[in-house]
């Protein structure tokens, strides 16, 4: 038995992101069951859980790729209001292009592998309505530079790049329009440990310099520990525990979280 926590009293800003009571089933499989989550401006929310816990489905809902059967989603931003799940397809696409950036574990999901890297980043700006070639090129270069992508490879297509570099292109694309929200789905899984460290460091730097609100999904507790301020633990489509990152790792309350933390090398 532990104490029930109070509502925030010092921090008076509203969460930037609020997801409330979302559920999603694929046939007989209940992927996400009545999940709520929030992230404050500038906060990094980590979501951990094993495969099939529903964490990636939840992230895709936050990117409006999946629309749940129930529940609501709000972003506290100027010109954004109401339940975002109710937007039509066009409004959804516009909102995602301008306010939300996403990095997938699999670069094929986020990039056109045979187009140039700078073109991949510029595409995002095109969707948002930018038409000047010079502006596109400059903005793409700036975003790639911020993601620590080597600028002498601007025109190389992602298919010719290493995994770490592909993730940087995805990241550049995600941040090109200075999104309010950055979603990361296993951004370092499958990369070499040294490359993983570089990507994590880039993310940390971006977060500190730009105060982007981030939601990061990973089964790698080390990644979550490095980046997240707050952690949400999911299992079988439900949230079993949330807390400050250090508390979740040092004093996990739920039996499943204890098992997860103890299993880490």
């Amino acid at each position, binding site marked *: 038995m532990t104490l029930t926590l109070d509502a*925030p009293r010092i921090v008076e800003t509203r969460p930037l992101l609020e997801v409330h009571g979302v559920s999603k089933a694929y046939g007989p499989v209940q992927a996400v069951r009545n999940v709520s989550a929030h992230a404050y401006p500038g906060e990094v929310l980590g979501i951990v859980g094993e495969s099939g816990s529903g964490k990636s489905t939840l992230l895709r809902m936050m990117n409006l790729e999946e629309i749940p059967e129930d529940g609501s989603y709000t972003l506290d931003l100027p010109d954004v209001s109401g339940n975002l799940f109710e937007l039509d397809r066009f409004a959804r696409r516009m909102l995602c292009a301008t306010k939300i950036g996403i990095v997938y574990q699999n670069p094929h999901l986020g990039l056109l592998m045979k187009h140039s890297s700078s073109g991949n980043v510029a595409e995002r700006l095109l969707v948002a309505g930018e038409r000047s070639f010079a502006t596109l090129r400059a903005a793409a270069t700036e975003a790639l530079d911020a993601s620590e992508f080597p600028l002498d490879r601007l025109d190389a297509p992602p298919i010719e790049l290493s995994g770490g570099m592909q993730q940087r292109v995805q990241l550049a694309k995600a941040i090109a329009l200075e999104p309010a929200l950055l979603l990361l789905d296993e951004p370092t899984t499958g990369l070499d440990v040294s490359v993983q460290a570089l990507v*994590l460091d880039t993310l940390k730097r971006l977060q500190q310099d730009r105060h982007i609100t981030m939601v990061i999904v990973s089964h790698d507790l080390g990644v979550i520990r490095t980046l997240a301020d707050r952690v949400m633990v999911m299992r079988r489509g439900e949230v079993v525990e949330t807390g400050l990152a250090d508390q979740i790792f040092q004093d996990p309350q739920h039996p499943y979280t*204890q098992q997860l933390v103890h299993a880490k090398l």
Partner: protein
Amino acid sequence: MTVLDIQGLTKGFSLHHLAKDIPAFEDISFRVAAGEFVLLKGANGAGKSTLLRTLYRSYLPLSGEIRFHSSHGLIDLARAADVDVAHLRRTEIGFVTQFLTARPRVSAEAIVAEPLRLAGWEPEAALDAARKALATFGVKPDLWAAYPTTFSGGEQQKVNLARALILPQKLLMLDEPTASLDANARAALVARLQELKDQGTAMIGVFHHPDDVMHLIDRVVDLTPDAAPQEERDDVAL
């Protein structure tokens, strides 16, 4: 002026895979005033480090109150929302451990400057202050831009202290900060603690060898329970 008022604080750990409840400390009450230095005493396993971590909310207490007089008013840290605790850690509550959490590819000066950046300082001003702090603790200028992941234990600890003590806090927890320090760095630490104390920082510390800080100590709180001595359990949650 009271900064912290701890009332009936109790902490234990439920280890589900062992189906076991392990008590850490029970019904602790004491107060700490601004500028006061409280030394926690007690045998290994009396729960000294556990108490510090509970006050910082790395551990969740089972019952009791941790009434902190923040600049936003009185708040019970035992029940405060996570986001409020995170805010207070960036602005008013510090924790000094004996280990540096070095991140790959982050320089010593950047690590030390980070708390200032999080508190809203401009990058250049933060870096300046960080370099001064590193110099105070005796880290050579050659190392400031290097990555501490490769430093020796002693050098890492200097970076750690420079970082942990750079931002004056209202409340500071100290968990064995003198471990693995050379004499000069120890002297720098004691001088910095004195400075913070004079500025009104309330401190609660655990020291295996409190000789260095003897003249700073205003009060000793003994956590030794009345019961028979208990097993070592500082790291039980990990």
